[in-house]
């Protein structure tokens, strides 16, 4: 591993001893904030790094400073690189990298909204997390901001949408309350006739203050909150949180616990992918496969209920392992169900791709090009459908994935069809993974004992390739070993700009199917 640090140090032109391997798979480099743009260039160009998260923390009680953190994935080295820089509260600003690295765009603005640290040179330094009726200076994640502060509303709740003008051009506002059973957000379409010229988003309607709340809960209760970051990713986020705590506390998860986590994560992937595939059929009014997909999903969540005690697999992940073992009877139930599921699933996909009424609507619809996906830092299913071959299960292996044989399906089309096919192929791979792991469950305990306290003033990164894409949690403790900071990054936060790029040029009636093909979480984004 030391050779990794040496190579990275050489590429970044910093002394090798400055880079420390904080934890396995996690290199840490403390730098000066002014050096960040130059380092971003070198990480991106020399090391093929991809920006996964960017956030601040308030360490004024310890060091009298704020701190910025940049999490880069370096798949070539199977390691993350955490660049961290102190910010003097007397000069609360930092150099922006958003113009060159659009993935930093929302992250930097969120730091501005919640910490009052201003990204210098940001091309569009407007609010992203706080709506316009929040007063200036409501820096909610600063330590001197109490969680229960009643923030007064200021008049003038008018989001500054960019006007789209021209002959015959008009705007279509949609949301935040939508027509279906989905989460709230506002879409503003600039259209000329049916084709969309421009799409603008306004999100953060469901901002619940989750990161602040983590700081108030005892660390053992954090897992329950992690499960509610995005209800459809209960396993993914709980696991990312558990990973961070385990790495922070140097806890070793027993092999059986790791294997069971893979089962839970792959089941979550399957039940969500099948629901999305059905929803795509619904959105093009192809009802037979839509109904079949719903039935397949319900059958699977009922089996999950039977085997793991919860339809949506909540309460299954524990810090240190899993909460419930999989007994031999449960294993048989699961195996039998998955075998039948696999056959049905194959027929369902055939039904879809053989139907001209379906392919007509999804082929060439909502294209996100590979270059756009790379430039925007798109992750997960959406990235792999645009030809970007990235998956944390292989690039930064966690749990039992290193010992398993599986492929990472990648499609080149970047359209709705490609995102559908990536999901379909991933379900097949998940079934393969489950087949392997159900046959070889290690015979150990499911979870390790937890310590009374976590190490004080420590930090660690936890990550998981969940069904939508990577979930990362950065956890830091205070002097008592309680939680001082949790930064949650849901793949949706990185992928919403991808939707904005995929929609223009398409007609408004195709928006629902494009949106569904990304299926991003509002709650995970807004937190």
């Amino acid at each position, binding site marked *: 591993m030391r050779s990794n640090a040496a190579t990275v140090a050489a590429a970044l032109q910093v002394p090798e001893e400055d880079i420390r391997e904080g934890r396995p798979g996690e290199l840490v480099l403390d730098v000066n904030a002014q050096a960040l743009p130059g380092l971003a260039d070198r990480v991106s160009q020399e090391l093929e790094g991809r920006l996964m998260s960017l956030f601040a923390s308030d360490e004024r009680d310890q060091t009298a400073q704020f701190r910025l953190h940049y999490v880069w994935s370096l798949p070539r080295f199977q390691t993350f690189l955490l660049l961290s820089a102190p910010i003097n509260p007397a000069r609360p600003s930092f150099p922006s990298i958003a113009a060159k690295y659009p993935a930093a765009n929302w992250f930097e603005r969120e730091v501005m909204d919640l910490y009052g640290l201003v990204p210098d040179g940001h091309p569009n330094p407007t609010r992203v997390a706080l709506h316009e009726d929040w007063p200036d200076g409501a820096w*909610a994640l600063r330590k001197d901001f109490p969680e229960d502060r009643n923030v007064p509303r200021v008049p003038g709740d008018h989001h500054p949408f960019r006007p789209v003008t021209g002959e015959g051009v008009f705007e279509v506002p949609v949301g935040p*309350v939508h027509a279906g059973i989905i*989460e709230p957000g506002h879409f503003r379409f600039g259209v000329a006739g049916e084709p969309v010229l421009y799409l603008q988003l306004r999100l953060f309607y*469901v*901002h619940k203050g989750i990161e*602040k709340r983590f700081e108030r809960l005892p660390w053992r209760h954090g897992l329950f909150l992690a499960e509610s970051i995005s*209800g*459809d990713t209960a396993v993914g986020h709980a696991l990312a949180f558990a990973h961070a705590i385990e790495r922070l506390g140097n806890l070793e998860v027993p092999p059986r616990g790791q294997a069971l986590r893979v089962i839970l994560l792959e089941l979550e992937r399957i039940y969500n992918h099948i629901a999305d595939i059905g929803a795509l059929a619904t959105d093009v009014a192809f009802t037979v496969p839509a109904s079949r997909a719903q*039935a397949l999903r319900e059958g699977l969540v009922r089996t999950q*209920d039977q085997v793991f005690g919860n339809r949506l697999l909540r309460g299954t992940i524990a810090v240190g392992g899993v909460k419930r073992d999989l007994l031999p009877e449960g294993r048989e139930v699961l195996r039998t169900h998955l075998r039948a599921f696999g056959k049905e699933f194959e027929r369902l996909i055939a039904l879809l791709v053989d139907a001209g009424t379906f392919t007509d609507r999804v082929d060439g619809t909502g294209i996100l090009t590979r270059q756009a996906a790379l430039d925007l830092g798109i992750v997960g299913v959406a990235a792999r459908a645009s030809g970007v071959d990235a998956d944390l299960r292989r690039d930064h292996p966690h749990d039992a994935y290193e010992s398993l044989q599986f492929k990472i399906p990648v499609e080149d089309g970047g359209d709705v069809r490609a995102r559908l096919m990536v999901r379909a192929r991933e379900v097949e791979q998940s079934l393969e993974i489950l087949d392997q792991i159900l046959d070889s469950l290690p015979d150990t305990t499911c979870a390790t004992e937890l310590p009374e306290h976590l190490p004080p003033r420590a930090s660690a990164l936890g990550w998981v390739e969940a069904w939508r894409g990577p979930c990362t949690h950065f956890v830091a403790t205070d002097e008592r070993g309680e939680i001082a900071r949790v930064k949650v990054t849901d793949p949706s936060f990185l992928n919403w700009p991808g939707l904005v790029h995929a929609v223009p040029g398409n007609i408004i009636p195709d928006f629902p199917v494009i949106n569904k093909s990304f299926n991003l979480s509002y709650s995970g984004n807004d937190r």
Partner: protein
Amino acid sequence: MLGIISKSLRTGTLTEADPFGGHASFGFPVMDFSRCTACDECVRSCPTGAIRAVPTTPDGKLISLSYASCIQCRACVAACPEQAISVSTDVEVAAYSREQLARTASFDVDPVTGRGTFRQVELEAGLSLADAAARLKERIRGRLGRSLHVRQVDAGSCNGCELEIAATTNPFYDLERFGIHFVASPRHADALLVTGPVTRNMEAALRRTYEATPEPRVVVAVGACGCSGGIFGEGTYAALGGVDRVLPVDVYIPGCPPRPQAILNGLLVAMGVREARVGTR
């Protein structure tokens, strides 16, 4: 086309004639107060404050458990040294007020050992289930009939409740056969099915959706967060808490998330077809 027809024929009917009923050990915690020693272990284990202990006098204490904020994590079941907490089989839980979802007992506390002895179960404030049911029926009587058009509003949910609400429309539950239909606009709706916690950023949209719904309108709060703020709490800088902090709520469906059958049951309660039950306690 032939494939589609043959597929449909082969599949047959998936819809369950009776989607209701209990589930062994999938319900809510039930406290056997007579075994409880008021040691407060469950209070400390509860991540949402669903179990609370309030000292009344130096030698008295109240312990209450509210399903409104219970996320069914069962931490209390594991924490109780007296094995006084079990899990019910009741999953179709609904009520007409937050108080009806709570159960409170008073204890005499030994000043030396701190050990509590169960005194009695206290009466909750407000209407009984039967009286509240009658009142709701009175209000909607003859107006909504045996059908209910529902607008769902996510006012801050994690989307777990949305997954289970959507599941009520799948072929197994098929809620439309009960006369319930999800509509695209509040202007078409008789009822709002609201999930929470109501965030600061959704408060105005929720109020406006309510105002756009014609009278008589029924508001149903779904999930621990919709009933009480749940794990996200109440009165934080970003979240107001339960739906009743913003709108008058007629029916509460607790759970994290409530199962599709519980949501279906709650909607039938809102129609006056079923009466709310909180279950064995």
